[in-house]
């Protein structure tokens, strides 16, 4: 049972406030929450906080705080799930979730909240059911611009690669606008993998963990069946063996309830009747032992590579020698940041940095190959994106729609593979 729900901007300004029970506090609760959050000692977790008989539970999503309060001892899993679902839902309806879109669509947000929650109880969160009741249309501020990359979510233009996508799926509300009948039928399928890798100072792999999910965003009329073919060598668990060669071994898979698994066992085909909107199609944990050198297959490339290297305290100056002009390196907050907009597979890049460490004449750190690191030279973390590449090798073979579009031309189908680094850390 939820007493209140509110959305705060990253600076603590309340954007949305809704009291479901009429029995508690007032709007100043939102302010109280923000004060408590910012005043929290470092070792305490902000996820669940208690004040005056009221529990605050929140998530941070696209730099917004989505907060609920409750006075009962509820299931934290369900509540957090609800909050993430609300975030997705608001993203679906408003185009994307952000301070700007929320404040432009306040009426729509309140309308949604009225439908989703009644008296603090969840009624429904399915985009499908909600679309029957939502009247207000989303205000989309401006047409999608290729150069505006700040407000995009997962779909569409997160990477430069997707600049080729002619659609504005990222910031387009799922609910097809009634005025615009020429809407295209489009389906976006993303295979997203998150890598967390830990490499010891001697180069051995300490931990490799890949967590992936297949996400589908559909603008099709609901109820249409579609089939997604996955790589045939996809095996679940340790015992199953399928196909030749190394295959793809997944520890565990879970599917959304709308997925029809009849054909999965035999042909690795998922059949589903997707509700509209964004849903996690299934997520799997994957443990693959792979040795990743700097070189990817030469046809793929890594984008937005950023190396973050904490430096000993007091480092002031930096001299650099980089191999290409589009790279950039700078000192920020006691760390070295080296940005590489793109790294072609099979290539090798080098940078020579020289820093002055006051006190002891520190050895110039050359790339990552220092022998005896001075204290405070932290582990280097690398963040990057690998479009058109999945570390597990999981591919979507085909995506077929089993319905006849009425009148309109064939629906457009976009399939994208993407890996990005969750935590890629090299110990020094």
């Amino acid at each position: 049972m939820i007493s209140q729900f509110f959305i705060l901007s990253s600076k603590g300004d309340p954007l949305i406030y809704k009291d479901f029970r009429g029995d508690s506090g007032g709007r100043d609760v939102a302010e109280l929450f923000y004060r408590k959050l910012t005043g929290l000692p470092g070792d305490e977790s902000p996820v669940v906080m208690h004040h005056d008989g009221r529990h605050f539970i929140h998530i941070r999503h696209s730099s917004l705080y989505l907060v609920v309060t409750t006075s009962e001892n509820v299931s934290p899993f369900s509540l957090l799930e609800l909050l993430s679902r609300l975030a997705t839902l608001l993203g679906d309806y408003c185009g994307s979730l952000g301070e700007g879109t929320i404040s432009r669509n306040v009426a729509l947000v309140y309308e949604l909240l009225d439908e989703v929650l009644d008296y603090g109880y969840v009624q429904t969160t399915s985009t499908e059911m909600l679309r029957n009741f939502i009247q207000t249309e989303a205000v989309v501020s401006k047409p999608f611009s290729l150069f505006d990359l700040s407000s995009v979510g997962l779909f569409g233009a997160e990477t430069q690669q997707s600049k080729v996508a002619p659609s504005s799926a990222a910031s387009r509300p799922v609910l097809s606008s009634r005025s615009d009948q020429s809407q295209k039928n489009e389906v976006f399928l993303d295979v997203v993998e998150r890598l967390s890798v830990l490499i010891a100072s001697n180069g051995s792999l300490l931990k490799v963990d890949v967590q992936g999910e297949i996400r589908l965003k559909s603008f099709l009329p609901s109820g249409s069946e579609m089939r997604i073919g996955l790589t045939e060598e996809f095996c679940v668990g340790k015992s199953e063996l399928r196909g030749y060669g190394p295959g793809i071994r997944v520890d565990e898979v879970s599917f959304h309830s709308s997925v029809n698994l009849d054909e999965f066992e035999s042909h690795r085909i998922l059949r589903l009747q997707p509700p509209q909107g964004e849903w996690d199609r299934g997520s799997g944990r994957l443990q693959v032992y792979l040795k990743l050198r700097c070189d990817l297959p030469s046809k793929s490339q890594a984008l937005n590579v950023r190396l973050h290297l904490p430096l000993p305290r007091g480092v002031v100056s930096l001299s650099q020698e980089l191999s290409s002009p589009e790279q950039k390196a700078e000192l920020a907050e006691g760390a070295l940041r080296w940005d590489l907009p793109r790294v072609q597979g099979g290539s090798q890049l080098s940078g020579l940095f020289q820093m002055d460490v006051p006190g002891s004449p520190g050895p110039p750190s050359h790339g990552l190959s220092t022998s005896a690191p001075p204290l405070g030279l932290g582990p280097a973390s690398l963040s990057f994106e690998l479009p058109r590449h999945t570390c597990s090798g999981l591919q979507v073979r085909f995506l077929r729609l089993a319905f006849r579009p009425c009148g309109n031309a064939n629906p457009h189908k976009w399939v994208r593979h993407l890996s990005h680094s969750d935590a890629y850390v090299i110990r020094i």
Partner: protein
Amino acid sequence: MPYLGSEDVVKELKKALCNPHIQADRLRYRNVIQRVIRMPGVQEYIQQPILNGLRDKASYVRRVAVLGCAKMHNLHGDSEVDGALVNELYSLLRDQDPIVVVNCLRSLEEILKLEGGVVINKPIAHHLLNRMSKLDQWGQAEVLNFLLRYQPRSEEELFDILNLLDSFLKSSSPGVVMGATKLFLILAKKFPHVQTDVLVRVKGPLLAACSSESRELCFVALCHVRQILHSLPGHFSSHYKKFFCSYSEPHYIKLQKVEVLCELVNDENVQQVLEELRGYCTDVSADFAQAAIFAIGGIARTYTDQCVQILTELLGLRQEHITTVVVQTFRDLVWLCPQCTEAVCQALPGCEENIQDSEGKQALIWLLGVHGERIPNAPYVLEDFVENVKSETFPAVKMELLTALLRLFLSRPAECQDMLGRLLYYCIEEEKDMAVRDRGLFYYRLLLVGIDEVKRILCSPKSDPTLGLLEDPAERPVNSWASDFNTLVPVYGKAHWATISKCQGAERCGPELPKTSSFAVSGPLIPEDNKEREQELPDSGALMLVPNRQLTADYFEKTWLSLKVAHQQVLPWRGEFHPDTLQMALQVVNIQTIAMSRAGTRPWKAYLSAQDDTGCLFLTELLLEPENSEMQISVKQNEARTETLNSFISVLETVIGTIEEIKS
């Protein structure tokens, strides 16, 4: 102050409610019913629209109307329950629409709050179980929670239910998986192997949540992992790498992960875990580094040699924030594991240069004092401290220095005599802090009595390995926390939760306090959120007292007056009496105190209530007359069953007997 709406709004709302066909437009209906929560002025207008709504053809309208019943009830304020409405809601549990069904449960729960909420009997439970697959994830999670209060009648039925629930353990929604897990744990409380089985199956979803993209979910999952580890220490040992911290994680997740690593360590992974933890010790964040060092100290209780070696190496870094924590860890360690004293003593020399803070200094001085005879340069280190005592800012350090120096003086008198004299002189003549001065005077006078007396007083044991056993909580049975699973308790931590529910209790009780008379049945409620503090009654045979919702004093009085005394007995009682102790002890066995007189009142009375798992209610009066040194117990029961009555009385006797023993 809630917004009550302007007069116009209320008028408009009344007008809308008077429209006999209001539910024809479902959105309008919803808007109207949703708004009534803040407008007490419209009470008499809502009843009809809501009753009409309950029988409407559109499921959407029924959903709104069902929750409207709860709103209407809460709006009235008094606890009068409309029986016909409740019956109607119970029959709506068979509605076609799954959301109506779930809303009915929610609504009944609120309306019947004072009677212990909605009753889940066998037909309802089975009906709900069969409808489960039609519900969405939120409905499923909620129904699983309601089913917790259902007690299957036979083992066969129990396993049928468990089979039905099996598929929900595989749900893609963590809320449903955890809800199903909890239900499994609670239902199978007498079958430990089933419980272990379920915990094995929930391992996958929990680990997935632990590495989830959502930090918040990850944190909550980690808290639950720790909870499970308390009962099954080896449960996640093979997955230890999942709990390695990654660089970008927020502080609170890293701390949780370090705790988890500490708890799952075993012979096979200890090497890797310690290596990982050592990496954290040089983290840029001093707080996190220190947490990692303390964690190594915790593991050192089992794997002493390896850990002491790592800690000793850390001293070589000569970093202040590291050295101080290492020395503190050493102090705790030699107290618990005397076998490492030699290694620690060898590592200590040189530390004093890198310690600036009070805690670290105290730890170092304590170690030098207690184990000074094994550290060659101990007197000289302490001498440095004595030299600088004037500029020392922490009184606690000075006190520690006094004790340590006196101890060292006993084992190495020649080297210490002079500086002990100087220190005592300083403490008595120049020190401004009274506690330090008194300590100095105390030792001075003690020395005057004679060296043998000093030895007798100061040379206590230098270690106490048994303390470790006391500190390490033994493996707790799954049943001790099953009811806390998938609630906020593991997220806050047991200790923090206890303070929260206590202050919540105090708040609720607060406004009623002034009414306290010497004793009265209608006296203050002793509120206690007993739902959260559920504790199984150990081996009381067939009787199983459940932590029921607090009865109101009125309800208690009514029931008490309507029943006959089923059992009366007199127990001997001598001397002092502490009502609080008794109340706490009764709480442990799930007997609630309804009202009691203040301590010292004569005669002293208390009224208690308890309920067993079949719903049988025990009402008890305690009457203490100090003059006669006896306590009279009268028990009333709402169902006449001698067997449970006898068990109940034996429980009560045990508690009172225990209190009596503690006291005497």
